[in-house]
């Protein structure tokens, strides 16, 4: 099912590198588009698009099994070329956040594999990867929905390169608390707090988008 939504938040000025504003680009998602994986989703924000598939709870190799919870594995493939160190570090970041959220204790000695493929990258890659993961892991059983927003770099590839700092936060759906933060660049304490507040405001729109897309998906049954 495809859902599209165009969001302009209240303080709709274009953020420059100094003033964190809150303007989200157009996003869209499609669910269950692949037939092989147990769950799949594709998420599009502006010109950045990521495709994700999840397999699990499935068989796990004896060497990798954990006796009391599921083994979570994340594979991120870039658009071109072989995966390198940057992909590995992003995979680890995603895995650590997902482990906090997914109820692995319900499926001990199994494996849950999330495969992400970057289809096109125009700057907001981090912000695109998460909604994919959130949409599909909700089939597994999660304690809360997790959602990322990227600030200060959220306006397209060229601005992300010019921005002084890029901060990405993952927030939970229940109380908008911080689950994960990763930052790159130079910024001050107040700017960090401002960005976090802007991310929390923006996340309301994204969660509303999740809810609408899920309602559409379940509307036929």
């Amino acid at each position, binding site marked *: 099912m495809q859902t599209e939504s165009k969001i302009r938040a209240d303080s709709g000025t274009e953020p420059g590198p100094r003033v964190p504003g809150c303007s989200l680009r157009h996003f869209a998602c499609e669910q269950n588009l692949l037939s092989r994986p*147990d769950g799949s989703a594709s998420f599009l924000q502006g010109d950045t698009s990521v495709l994700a598939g999840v397999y699990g709870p499935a068989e796990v190799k004896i060497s990798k099994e954990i006796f009391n919870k599921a083994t979570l594995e994340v594979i991120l493939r870039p658009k071109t070329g072989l995966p390198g160190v940057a992909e590995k570090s992003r995979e680890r970041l995603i895995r650590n956040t997902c482990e906090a959220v997914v109820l692995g204790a319900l*499926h001990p000695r199994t494996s849950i594999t999330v495969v992400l493929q970057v289809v096109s990258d125009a700057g907001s890659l981090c912000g695109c990867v998460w909604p994919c993961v959130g949409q599909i892991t*909700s*089939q597994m059983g999660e304690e809360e929905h997790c959602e990322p927003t990227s600030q200060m770099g959220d306006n397209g590839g060229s601005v992300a390169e010019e921005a002084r700092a890029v901060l990405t936060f993952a927030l939970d*759906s229940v109380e908008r608390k911080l689950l994960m933060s990763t930052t790159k660049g130079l910024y001050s304490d107040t700017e960090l707090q401002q960005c976090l507040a802007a991310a929390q405001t923006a996340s309301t729109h994204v969660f509303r988008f999740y809810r609408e897309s*899920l309602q559409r998906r*379940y509307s036929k*049954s």
Partner: protein
Amino acid sequence: MAEAAGVPAESLAGCRARAARTVLDQVVLPGEELLLPDQEDGDGPGGAGERPLRLNAAARSRGRVVCGPGLRRCGDRLLVTKCGRLRHKEPGSGSGGGVYWVDSQQKRYVPVKGDHVIGIVTAKSGDIFKVDVGGSEPASLSYLAFEGATKRNRPNVQVGDLIYGQFVVANKDMEPEMVCIDSCGRANGMGVIGQDGLLFKVTLGLIRKLLAPDCEILQEVGKLYPLEIVFGMNGRIWVKAKTIQQTLILANILEACEHMTADQRKQIFSRLAES
């Protein structure tokens, strides 16, 4: 009726607990908290507020509420862990508060005790068969768990055969075990599934829909061609009709009817019945 209660809650995106009654048949997201009917007013039996004694049927529903798939107990509230539609079933005999569960769309099967499933025999080792049921590990099936099987009289099961059986042990900590007899020792339709026919996979939600007591799809399919059909709760369906072409048509119809409305289905059936 359900819409009005849904709209103000959306703006807070589920950051406060809602009464389960108001959210029935609506889509719920993981992380939402639901209040049971006897917790909506006051703080509970030891609360400071006064609650009027209700002498109606609602007072009787305070009993044991069963928390089904997709929900977890969190203190005295229900926490949603899967996205889907919230459903409720009233208790039949009046005791307890009924069952709440979340209807979600899923392709992956997790073994549950008592479920009847179709498995494929993958290995024979000593006295047990290893059967692939689509879960995270293969189930084990003892050779004595067939009707009329003894140590001298072994059942005729080869690797690659299809088995219809039910789980006697299925929890997250142990390897699942299945049998092909019921508690009285009779096969009751279980055992090795015969030759020919076609096995295909569908989503778990479609199986539950087809096995619901009031499902018309199955009756319409039965009027179309004479057929044999076996449904496994692990998303597998085995179908056999007189010719291969009819079998393939039936398989395609069953796979497609998940996404079709009742009218589209009736059109397709009438077109097939003519040809």
